[in-house]
């Protein structure tokens, strides 16, 4: 190591990379002038050095209290943030000290937030993948009892029973809630933007749509139950009740996103259409909605993604079934979320819960897959159907 490089790092000057060709014939560089703007800065190696030191101290502290990766990470992080900020304060002054403390805390918060979220995704993938197979996808839980699960654990045979009935239930209930919500939601948004013009009725509707946005999902379930209880008696639990409950959650989302999209359609287009002697309803259906359709469609897709994973309203409206039921107007119905919930909370075989847990995670993976596909689909729709620009 030449004197020159030592000198360089002492000044804390960011190294200007020496071109590769020069490396072969190192010339003694002239002593570098200290850049006055770089005065009073920590040398570059200081922060990585402190980090390494903190890691050692953190590991040591963790060993004292019984070693674990979690405690080591926590101790290291605390020691590093304190040491690095104090050093910066000492060398560069309190303002920069505070700045680096804030920086480390922000980065730390981000890493901290990643831990549970990554853990959720990792767990679902790790535990869900083994359970996903053709048998799981295309069979229901009909006839799968505790004895069946016990047998498969004792004999080490594959887990019997699947989520087909729950997938069918989820798709049907979501389909019906979409059938209810999209027309009601879109027409309401059209009323608010094109007809209501901020009149008293429009303001009342806006207010109550806001109220609906804040309804907890379990209360939405109770709403639907109470409604059908009055109409069909207290034990009316079937798919359509769940669909109505989900609609209560979905309609405000559809209204909001449609409203936003209709509002950004330039008024000039409406005027252009009127000036051609086109009627208002045709202007709305043929000019305004086509212009906004990409945004509306992606909003609707996101709304579907939101309700497809709802559990609580299904619990109180559609009950739980083990068999395949394609009739939303009769009998209990299973959905993926309730399937997951019941497999965990009341395992099919109380003595051997592993098959149930495996089915639950597989169903969770399936559900997350659906939600992700819908979210990505929403993005795709938004970009594919956006009004075309260019020649």
């Amino acid at each position, binding site marked *: 190591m030449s004197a020159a490089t030592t000198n360089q790092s002492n000044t804390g000057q960011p190294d200007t990379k020496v071109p590769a060709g020069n490396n072969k014939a190192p010339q003694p560089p002239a002593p570098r002038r200290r850049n006055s703007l770089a005065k009073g800065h920590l040398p570059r190696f200081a922060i990585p050095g402190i980090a390494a030191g903190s890691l050692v101290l953190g590991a040591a502290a963790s060993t004292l209290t019984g070693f674990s990766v979690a405690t080591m990470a926590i101790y290291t992080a605390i020691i590093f943030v304190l040491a690095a900020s104090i050093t910066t304060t000492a060398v560069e002054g309190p303002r920069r000290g505070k700045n680096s403390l804030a920086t480390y805390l922000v980065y730390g918060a981000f890493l901290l937030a990643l831990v549970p979220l990554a853990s959720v995704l990792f767990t679902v993938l790790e535990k869900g993948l083994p359970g996903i197979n053709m048998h799981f996808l295309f069979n229901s839980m009909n006839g799968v009892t505790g004895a069946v699960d016990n047998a498969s654990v004792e004999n080490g045979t594959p887990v019997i029973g699947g989520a087909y009935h729950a997938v069918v239930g989820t798709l049907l209930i979501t389909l019906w809630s979409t059938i209810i919500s999209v027309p009601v939601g879109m027409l309401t948004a059209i009323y608010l933007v094109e007809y209501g013009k901020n009149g008293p009725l429009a303001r009342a509707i806006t207010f109550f749509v806001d109220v609906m946005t804040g309804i907890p999902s379990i209360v939405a379930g109770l709403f639907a139950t109470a409604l059908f209880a009055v109409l069909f008696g207290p034990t009316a639990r079937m798919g359509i009740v769940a669909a109505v409950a989900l609609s209560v959650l979905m309609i405000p989302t559809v209204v909001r996103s449609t409203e936003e999209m209709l509002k950004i359609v330039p008024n000039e287009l409406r005027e252009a259409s009127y000036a051609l002697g086109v009627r208002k309803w*045709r202007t709305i259906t043929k000019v305004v909605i086509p212009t906004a359709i990409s945004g509306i469609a992606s909003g609707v897709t996101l709304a579907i993604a939101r309700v497809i994973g709802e559990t609580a309203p299904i619990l109180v409206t559609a009950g739980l079934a083990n068999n395949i039921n394609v009739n939303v107007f009769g009998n209990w119905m299973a959905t993926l979320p309730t399937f997951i919930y019941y497999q965990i909370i009341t395992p099919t075989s109380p003595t051997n819960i592993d098959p149930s847990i495996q089915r639950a995670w597989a169903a969770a993976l399936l559900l997350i897959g659906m939600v992700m596909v819908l979210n990505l689909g929403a993005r795709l729709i938004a970009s594919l159907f956006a*009004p*075309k620009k260019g020649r």
Partner: protein
Amino acid sequence: MSKRIDVKDLNVYYSKFLAVEDVNIEIQAKSVTAFIGPSGCGKSTFLRTLNRMHEVIPGGRVEGEVLLDGDNLYESGVDPVTVRSQIGMVFQRPNPFPTMSIRDNVLAGVKLNGKKISKSDAESLVEKSLQGANLWNEVKDRLDKPGSGLSGGQQQRLCIARTIAVKPQVILMDEPCSALDPISTLAIEDLINELKSEFTVVIVTHNMQQAARVSDKTAFFNIAGTGKPGKLIEYAETATIFSNPSVKATEDYVSGRFG
């Protein structure tokens, strides 16, 4: 295919606010009439009352009569949609429908109303309208491309073609060149000169040279002050308005002393 417009004692309101007061004017068929005046004098508002477009804005209403060849636009039982299909309008900023191709933009007035039109009729209507708007040669090879891909001046001519395709009696133009460059403006002005052989054209413009170049008669609107209604000050042959106006305010305006 061209009708005259007579306006009698027209007051235009937005809710309670009187925007334009007591206008009387006769607009000849197959002529170009220009409305000039300072900003906010109500010339655009008045123009929009000529095909009931001002009703689109909440609270917009009128008192008085607007007669299209003797038929009152505002008589009860008259459908604004019928009025607008006879009196078309071109706007300040070109506004082709972004979701439609050039061809569909021209056919918009027909198709949006759900009228059936045979393919050959549609083709000839598209060609005729685009030729009428001096745009055919520029776009005939890309009729299926989106209208929003055209230049500003081409888009404005596309909007004119779209208006012509409905076969109106009158075409209203609300500062059609204010968003365009000088060359595109010239193209539109040439087009206006050709349009008057078939249509009655009424144009609102900020540009007095433009009014002098394109119009047969000119109406000068003015406003007494903020919050006061706009009024028609003087209406005469364009040459008279610009060389020998009878009202002092008109002379001040056209000579550039205010506005």
